């Protein structure tokens, strides 16, 4: 059966009458899950169910029923979750179902498989759900209890920059040798003034990975512009440092709020002229942009 045929049939059966939304949703969910369709067909129906705004009053209850039903295939439930997240953008249509949606996500956390559980956890974390955040922290502190990998947990905690997990995250970053975990942790700390010394150290450390150093530069510039400027000048003056990092430093110096101060510094200007004349690629381009802005 084609999705369009199915849609026509359900619409005919339901008559799209107002006031019987929940019953309509139940029927639609039953049709999606009970018909002798293949999993792919059923998943297509789920994905297609919110295509039209007018479908939402019946589609949302149907999707919630599928998401809540632990006997349904995980892929179908995951597709239902994706469709519900899309439906949530239509605030007025979704509002009557929001509380049930959140309650269903909590239920999913306790019984679903890893993929769906992780998706539910992320969705709740986006909502700044305190219980979801507690589960993420628990997983970071005790990997045996983790519902998602540590990099994902850090990313999800980062949805709430008032969560107050900086101490936990700093600890994870210090102990981990996984670059992805460190990167996600550092991203979360990038708005934490107490981490400015950490970013200053990372930015200056030639043994660090370049993406970590660049993240350190961006965070330091945001948290402590004066410290950043000092560190950037030092890196720029060091011909043994990597061109990519020196270009990052120079690019940022070109766009500081106090550019007049940078432009008036003869040592810095002389160094930039030298880099423009003697280097190639992005470092020379960065030097050219500095000179261009200097007028």
């Amino acid at each position: 059966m084609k999705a369009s045929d199915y849609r026509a049939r359900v619409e005919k059966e339901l008559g799209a009458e107002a006031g019987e939304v929940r019953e309509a949703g139940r029927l639609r969910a039953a049709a999606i899950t009970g018909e002798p369709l293949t999993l792919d067909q059923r998943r297509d129906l789920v994905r297609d169910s919110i295509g039209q705004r007018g479908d939402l009053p019946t589609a949302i209850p149907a999707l919630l029923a599928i998401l809540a039903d632990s006997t349904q295939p995980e892929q179908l439930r995951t597709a239902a979750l994706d469709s519900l997240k899309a439906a949530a953008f239509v605030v007025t249509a979704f509002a009557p179902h929001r509380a049930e949606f959140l309650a269903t996500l909590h239920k999913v956390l306790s019984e679903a498989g890893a993929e769906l559980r992780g998706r539910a956890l992320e969705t709740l974390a986006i909502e700044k759900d305190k219980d979801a955040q507690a589960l993420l922290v628990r997983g970071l502190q005790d990997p045996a209890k983790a519902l998602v990998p540590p990099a994902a947990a850090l990313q999800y905690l980062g949805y709430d920059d008032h969560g107050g997990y900086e101490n936990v995250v700093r600890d994870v970053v210090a102990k981990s040798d996984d670059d992805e975990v460190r990167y996600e942790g550092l991203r979360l700390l990038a708005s934490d003034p107490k981490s400015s010394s950490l970013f200053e150290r990372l930015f200056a450390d030639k043994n660090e990975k370049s993406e970590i150093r660049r993240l350190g530069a961006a965070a330091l510039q945001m948290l402590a512009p004066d410290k950043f400027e000092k560190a950037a000048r030092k890196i720029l003056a060091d011909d043994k440092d990597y061109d990519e990092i020196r270009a990052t430093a120079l690019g940022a110096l070109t766009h500081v709020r106090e550019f007049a101060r940078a432009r008036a510094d003869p040592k810095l200007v002389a160094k930039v002229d030298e880099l423009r004349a003697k280097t190639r690629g992005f470092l020379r381009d960065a030097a050219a942009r500095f000179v261009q802005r200097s007028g």
Partner: protein
Amino acid sequence: MRPAISQLLERIAGLAGQEGGADALAALLPEQAAVYDGLGSGEAERLRAHIFAALAAGALPAAALPFVLEELETGADPAATAAAAMALRGAPGAVAEAEALLLKSAARLAVADSPFPLAPGRTALQEVLATLAVLPTAGAESVAALGAMLAQGALSAAARAEAERTLAALRARRSEKPPCCSTKASDPGAPLPALEIAGVRLEDQSGARLAFADFFAGEPSALAFFYTRCMNPERCSLTVTKLARLQARLADRGLTGRARVAAISYDPDYDLPGRLADYGAQRGFRFDARNRFLRTLGPVEPLKAHFELGVGYGPATVNRHRIELFVLDGAGAVAASFTRRLWDEAEVAAALASQLASPATSS
């Protein structure tokens, strides 16, 4: 070592309905209370929700009422709002503003309803509506608002049923409604001496550095507290927008150039000058020598102690704060306070005008 959150919640639950428990619970509500130290904002909100819910077990002490009304007016956490609504049911006597504030919170929750973890199976909006149903002062305004809410068809089945029950209760009561009385819930603003903070070092949005007394002495000022990372649009963002409106009010009264308008950040390590300038400009605030945003160059503690600021801190930033604006006299001492509840620009402008008219300032 601070107690675990679970221990705090146990302690709060243990106070519910106990003799002296309500006063002990009310004492935990100020943002600067030690129970909130080091908590993230989510945990701080959770704690407050439990405190309000525990207060609902008995009569609401007068000291807790401003916190309940504040939560209903500008709270962003559905559970804390719902628990505040529950606590309001125990208010002794009628609270005139309660109806409008419950309706405001119901309107917020109508598009952001959540399960209410303290009453399994119910939602935050249901609790707010249930309070409205028993509120002695609720009447025609609620009937109209709930009617409109139901007509929009944007409520869940459970919330719809609750709204219908509330509407029926209100209609049944309309003919026997008692005359409305007024309870003004605002913190008293005790004048404080300015001298102890005269030397506190500040930096403004342009990077200029000065002492507290350099700016706040000589002319009366309106001083608000805020921080740019505030997540509640009804608090800091609105405060700064209202400061811009206050500037316009002062201009209308011909007071530009005679009074100052300033805001100081709760979060000085993060709110660097450029950030202060952008935040104000984006909300229409016009900066000049008399109109500045400031941050302390050292800790914010001296100002926190002096103004008894309602602010608590987590590991990285503010975890909770109230709305606070002070009108300072020409010596920098507090002449009037507008705290916890949304303030009115006209009232603040009038308070500044009154300072300018007083002999001490005009001489």
